[in-house]
Every structure is written in structure tokens, then in C-alpha cells.
């Protein structure tokens, strides 16, 4: 996997400290380092991306090679230290891997980290495949050390989650940090910032020049038309050109693996003598803008087409198919769509819509249901956050009214309360998200006396991204057992007076706890912690069956939305293969038609 290649490349490059926060599609990088740790590397899941970047910065000040991993929106959280670190610089090489997610497939935005590179004045590497990512990460460390600058390394989903054989070198290279040397340069001040700014502009010119000769920036072909591309899109272009075959006229090709600082000299060699260029890239038109700028600056009679001209889609992920059509449009070719099996008999029978859902037995379902039932006759707004529990927005639960970014359930609820104090404002937040950016929002609510109901969905893991540990779980990536940070104690320490923990799977008790928490808002912020482990870290419970004679109301389907319950031949049925035995449906059934089957042996 591309993410594994990045991890192994970093180990081979002698990385000494690895920090990060999980986020699709970046999550597998850091665990791979932990798994293959020759013993000398400090690996940690940090509480959030800002923390991760700052811990790594300290280690890099002391001369260690450091790797920081996150997804694209994580960089927003880390942007404060990032912007300043560009000015202060590093001693040990620092590579910040930020995985972008065109589509988006599992993200809130389609932001482009290459643009962040431009903004933060940091060099950016943009690998096109797992093999290239493995080789490139070493180049990134070397460049970082040569110029004393952090470097951004941004693969996209299809590189991160693509697999290919990679030849792995020696992973035992010892790091040799020479330690922290006190110097005024580590303290950022306005005067230092001015001087640093001058130095940054100077070094960007040098790096741009170096990048024009960089081994993964490639210029090939000849002719009067050109195709410029990057990352995975260059693979789509290769396949599309192969599909278009002999009808393709002679052309020049440019692949930009280092979009910032832009390899100007190489790009000029590409543009010189061209009439038309098509730029095929994902997310922002970064290369397109740079080529347009160069053409204008150098008065080149070349037309640059791409996202701006509508030849390439402005949003979403590229594909071999979309790129083939873009190239055909650019070259004025007719493409016959390839024959496939999608037409034919029974074409009207369409597969069902299948959005992602909370798993059967997921305790979040029980938590949402307890609050929903308790608030049936009250005006309430349900603020959601980032995690599996965002899936609580689906019907029939329909319990996520807002979702913005990590930690925002807590704070958005406060703004809503200020304008609409007559409603009850809930903030649902997961355990990992609570530690990530939830805590400052709770302090804000206590301080400003905004009486929201905080509901912490504590499932003892970071579930959505693949079950990573966090400060509340008592495990670290170094294999050590750590002190568990208790959420209830944290909340009490912050001044939340009403803090109650309960099991959401005990429906009536959970509902009563919700009502107590709502009542307690008369005294200020109140908090309810729903504690039940994710089914992926808990063992399966007993089996259940529906007694058809007693079954009358279909409430289990219309209220729960559990994947294990469906209607077969006008009868409710529990799929024993999917059921985790959470017992919630049995508790909800008004006719006691759902019966527990005493187990003869454990389920697979």
C-alpha cells in the first residue's frame, strides 16, 4: 500500500520521530512505522495535528529527522505552527505528509495541499505511485535538511490506498541527531520574521531551480501541442493515450512532481514552441495557473486549457474515462465508448442505493435513540461532529442537524443557543474527537455560561479511521501502557457540574439520564458520557430472533435502522450473521416479540 511505502521510505531515510493524527486516507502510514520500528524511532498518535506538528518541530530543532502524518483537513488544524515553522526552519529534516482526497471519498473538503504549500511557502512533493512515494520521501528529507525548511509531501487517495510491489532497502539506518543547540533563531520575533521572509523567498528560487532538474519531474516528446499533468492523473493520461491509440498527434508531455516552488526552467522548456496545452490535474488548477502565469510573463503565444476552460472537471476525482474524454475534446477526436456489460437484458433492474451506515450493534445508535426518544416532545437541535457517528444523520435516526469540522459540535451548539435559547442544544462528540479539539469548546461554554448538553460518545477507540488508540484508551504506539485520561474527570476539572456516565445500551436508564442532563442545564453546561465499546473492539453478544406471532408494529425498522433487521416476505427478520447481540431492539419492541436465544456456542 502507498501508505506503507511512505512509512518504509521514511524508516529507510533514518526518521527518528513520527507523529500524527489519524485521518483517511493517511491513517496507515504511522501504524506501519510502529509495526516496523527497528526500536530507535519514537512513534506517537498525538492528540491533534497541531500538537503532532509541534512535537515534531521540537525534535527537528534537536536534529532528528521527523515525519508528521495527517489528512488534508488536519493541516488546517496544524496551520498555525506550520506557517511560523516555515519562518523559523528546522535542523533535522522534517517531512509533513498530508494526504489529499479528491472526490472527496472520505472527507469534508476537496482542498488542495499544493495550494497550502504556495500559501505557507513550503516545498511540495506530489508522488504518482507507491513506488515513487517510497523513493521520493528520502529526497524530501534530504531537501528539507539542505535548506532547513519543513517540506510538504502530499499523496492523494489513489496513491495512499493503491498497492504495488515496492523494492525496500535497508531499514536499519541509524539516526544521528546531534541535539538541541541554543540559538536566537529558534525564537520567532517580528524582526526575525522579516529576515526569514527574505531568506524564504531566496531559497524558494534556489529550490525552483533545483526542481527543474529533479528526477521525477519529466519532460518528453515533441510537437506543437502539450499535455501537462501530475500525480495519479499522469497514470490516467498514460492509459487514456494508450486507449486513443494511433489517432493521437505528436505531442509534448510534462509531469510535475514538485508543484511548489514551480520548476520554472523546465516548464518554460515545455511551453516554448507550443500552440496549445491541456493541463490534467485534480483539485486546484495549480499547474494550470503556473503555466498561464509563465505564458503571460514570457509573452508566449500558447493557449493553456484545463479546469478554467472547462476541458477538465472542476470538482471530483479524475478517472481514466474522464481523462480520455478530456483529451479527446482537446484533440478534437471522436471517441467510441468502449463496449462493456452494463447494457443488456433486465437493464431496468438497478442495484439498491447503499450509503454507509452505523454497524449492527453500534452503541452510537443506542445513544442517538436515547436522546431522540427523551426529546420527542421538546424543541432540540442535535449538533454532530466528525467520526463514525456522523452516520447518525441517516434516516430513521436523523440525529445530526449540523456537522462542520473536528470539535465544532461543542462550539456551534453554543452559537445556536445564544440565538435560540428556548431550544435544547446537544453536542455529540466522540472520545477521540473530544481530546482532539473538543476540550477548548467545553471550557468556552463553562466560562461563558452557555448551557449546552454535551454528549460524549465514548466507544474506547478511534473507530472510523481504523481503531487507533487515543489518550483515553491507555495504549500508545510504542507498546507501552499509559495512564488513561478519564473524560468525566476532565469535564469536572473544567467546571462542568453535572457529569454522568451511563451505558447507552440500557435504553430506559439512558433515556432517564438524558432527561437529567437536560434538566441540569438550568445550572449551566451539563455532560452525559455514553460508555460502550465499538463492536470492532468488543465481543459478540447473544443471538436474537423475532417471534412472528407477537410481531405487530415494525417499530424496529422505522426507529432503529439496524442493518441486521429487515423485512422478508412481510415478516421482520434478524440476520444472525450481522447481529451483534446488543439487545437494543429487544428493549425497544413494545410487544416483546424479540427474544434472546440462549447461546449454545459463541458465534464466529
Amino acid at each position, binding site marked *: 500500500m502507498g501508505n506503507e511505502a511512505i512509512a518504509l521510505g521514511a524508516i529507510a531515510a533514518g526518521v527518528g520521530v513520527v507523529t500524527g493524527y489519524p485521518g*483517511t486516507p493517511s491513517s496507515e502510514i504511522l501504524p506501519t512505522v510502529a509495526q516496523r520500528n527497528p526500536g530507535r524511532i519514537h512513534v506517537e498518535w498525538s492528540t491533534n495535528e497541531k500538537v503532532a506538528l509541534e512535537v515534531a518541530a521540537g525534535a527537528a530543532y534537536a536534529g532528528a529527522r521527523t515525519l508528521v502524518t495527517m489528512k488534508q483537513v488536519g493541516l488546517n488544524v496544524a496551520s498555525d505552527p506550520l506557517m511560523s515553522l516555515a519562518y523559523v526552519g528546522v535542523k533535522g529534516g522534517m517531512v509533513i505528509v498530508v494526504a489529499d482526497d479528491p472526490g472527496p471519498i472520505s472527507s469534508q473538503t476537496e482542498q488542495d495541499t499544493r495550494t497550502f504549500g504556495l500559501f505557507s511557502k513550503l516545498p511540495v512533493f506530489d508522488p504518482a505511485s507507491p513506488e515513487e512515494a517510497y523513493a521520493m520521501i528520502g529526497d524530501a528529507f534530504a531537501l528539507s535538511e539542505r535548506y532547513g525548511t519543513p517540506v510538504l509531501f502530499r499523496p492523494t487517495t489513489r496513491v495512499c490506498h493503491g498497492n*504495488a510491489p515496492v523494492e525496500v532497502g535497508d531499514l536499519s539506518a541509524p539516526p544521528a541527531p546531534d541535539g538541541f543547540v541554543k540559538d536566537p533563531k529558534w525564537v520567532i520575533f517580528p524582526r526575525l520574521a522579516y529576515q526569514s521572509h527574505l531568506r524564504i523567498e531566496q531559497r524558494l528560487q534556489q529550490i525552483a531551480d533545483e526542481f527543474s532538474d529533479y528526477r521525477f519531474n519529466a519532460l518528453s516528446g515533441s510537437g506543437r501541442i502539450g499535455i501537462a499533468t501530475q500525480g495519479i492523473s499522469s497514470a*490516467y493520461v498514460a492509459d487514456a493515450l494508450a486507449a486513443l491509440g494511433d489517432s493521437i498527434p505528436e505531442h509534448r508531455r510534462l509531469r510535475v512532481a514538485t508543484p511548489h516552488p514551480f520548476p520554472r526552467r523546465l516548464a518554460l522548456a515545455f511551453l516554448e514552441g507550443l500552440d496549445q496545452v491541456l493541463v490534467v490535474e485534480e483539485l486546484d488548477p495549480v499547474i494550470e495557473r503556473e503555466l498561464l502565469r509563465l505564458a503571460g510573463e514570457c509573452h508566449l503565444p500558447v493557449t493553456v486549457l484545463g479546469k478554467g476552460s472547462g476541458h477538465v472537471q472542476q470538482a471530483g476525482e479524475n478517472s481514466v474515462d474522464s481523462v480520455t474524454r478530456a483529451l479527446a475534446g482537446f484533440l478534437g477526436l471522436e471517441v467510441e465508448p468502449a463496449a462493456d456489460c452494463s447494457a443488456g437484458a*433486465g437493464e431496468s433492474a438497478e*442495484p439498491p442505493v447503499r450509503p454507509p451506515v452505523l454497524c449492527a450493534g453500534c452503541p452510537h445508535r443506542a445513544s442517538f435513540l436515547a436522546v431522540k426518544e427523551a426529546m420527542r416532545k421538546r424543541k432540540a437541535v442535535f449538533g454532530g461532529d466528525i467520526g463514525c457517528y456522523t452516520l447518525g444523520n441517516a434516516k430513521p435516526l436523523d440525529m445530526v442537524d449540523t456537522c462542520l469540522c473536528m470539535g465544532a459540535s461543542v462550539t456551534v451548539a453554543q452559537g445556536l443557543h445564544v440565538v435560540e435559547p428556548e431550544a435544547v442544544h446537544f453536542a455529540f462528540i466522540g472520545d477521540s474527537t473530544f481530546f482532539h479539539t473538543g476540550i477548548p469548546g467545553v471550557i468556552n461554554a463553562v466560562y461563558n455560561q452557555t448551557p449546552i448538553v454535551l454528549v460524549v460518545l465514548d466507544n474506547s477507540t478511534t473507530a*472510523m479511521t481504523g481503531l487507533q488508540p487515543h489518550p483515553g484508551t491507555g495504549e500508545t504506539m510504542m507498546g507501552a501502557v499509559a495512564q488513561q485520561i478519564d473524560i468525566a474527570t476532565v469535564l469536572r476539572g473544567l467546571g462542568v457540574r453535572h457529569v454522568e456516565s451511563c451505558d447507552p445500551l440500557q435504553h430506559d436508564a439512558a433515556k432517564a439520564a438524558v432527561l437529567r442532563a437536560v434538566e441540569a442545564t438550568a445550572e449551566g453546561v451539563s455532560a452525559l458520557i455514553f460508555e460502550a465499546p465499538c463492536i470492532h473492539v468488543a465481543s459478540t453478544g447473544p443471538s436474537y430472533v423475532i417471534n412472528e406471532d407477537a410481531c405487530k408494529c415494525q417499530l424496529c425498522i422505522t426507529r432503529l435502522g439496524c442493518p441486521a433487521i429487515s423485512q422478508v416476505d412481510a415478516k421482520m427478520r434478524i440476520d444472525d450473521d450481522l447481529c451483534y447481540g446488543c439487545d437494543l431492539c429487544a428493549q425497544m419492541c413494545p410487544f416483546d416479540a424479540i427474544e434472546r436465544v440462549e447461546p449454545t456456542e459463541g458465534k464466529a
Partner: protein
Amino acid sequence: MSMGANTNIIIAGVGGQGTVLASKLVARAAMDAGLRVRTSETIGMAQRGGSVVSHVRVSEAPIASPLMAPGMADLLIGFEPGEAVRSLAFLRPGGTIVTNAQPVAPVAVSPTSAAYSGPAMLERLDGCGARLAVIDGAAICAEIGSLKVLNVALLGAAAGLGALGFSLDQFETAIRESVRERFVDMNLRALHAGARSASA
């Protein structure tokens, strides 16, 4: 039928069914055979019961893109009939479909919302111009005693039909290399049960 060295495979299923291991096993077999391979997985939110698709490309020559264009796949492995139908556009005419027979119903939110017919999907697969093998995955899983072996059973079926470009022996090796030791035997039995059911 494209055989052996150059095979493009689409693996379609529902998040949680084990599609990722299936593509990993094919990739392992390809690497062992000295072939080039690229795969691309669906990892993230869709793993929670959504539609997931893996692209697996095996070739003697260098492979550019991990993703296929429509009409490029030689083999479509469906873990569920509806998901196989959803990916039909990737399959070339005359390609092979190996699909599990049992549908996975999407989550019901109202008593009428889950009207989803597995047989209608199978009918559509049958009439699409591909060679079709329908595997009784539930029966094989019951025989082996685990629901987790559906992926290997389907691979066994595809290998048994000669549609994968690898022999059952090559897959046995790949399984031994990729699966935790205590699950090896179970998976080997599933592989052969799948192969038998395809040739039956």
C-alpha cells in the same frame, strides 16, 4: 478470455465483506509469479456498510493506472449480486462474472424501503453478455464454519474457472503467506470448496 499474465479484475461488495483481503491475495499471487500488479481499494467511510470496489490489474508489462476504465475488466467478482450489477460497466463483453448468490439488503428505514430483489440482479447478470458463475457463498461458509471465508471461496471459484490467471496451488501459497497461521487451514478449505462449486 484473457488469461494468465494480463488480467484485470474488479472486486465489488459491501463494506465489511472482506474485499480488501481478496485483492491482497491476488496481488500476492501475482508478485510470487513475478508479474506486475497494481490495486486500488475503497478504504474509509464506505467500509461501514457502503458499496466498496477494488481494482486489481495484473500484467507482464508496466501498468500505469491502478483504476480501470469502463470495459477493461476481464473478471468481475461480486460479493453480492447488486454490487456486481453496479460494477458491470467495468466488464468487457465476453468477460467472466463470479458472484455470490446471496443479496445483502441495504438498511431498511421503512418496511417498504428495502424492496431489493437478488434474483432480479442475478437475471441481469445472466443477460449481460458475460460468462456467469453463481456461487452459493452461504453454503460454503456454513460448510467451513465461518462467514469470513466468502472472499477466499469466491477467489477459489474464479481460479477454478481459470478466470484469474493463477492456479489453485499458487493461491494456496499466497494464502499461507498472507493469512495468520491459525486461519490458514480454514481458508484453504474455502478455496477448494469455491473451486469445486464453480466446476459443479
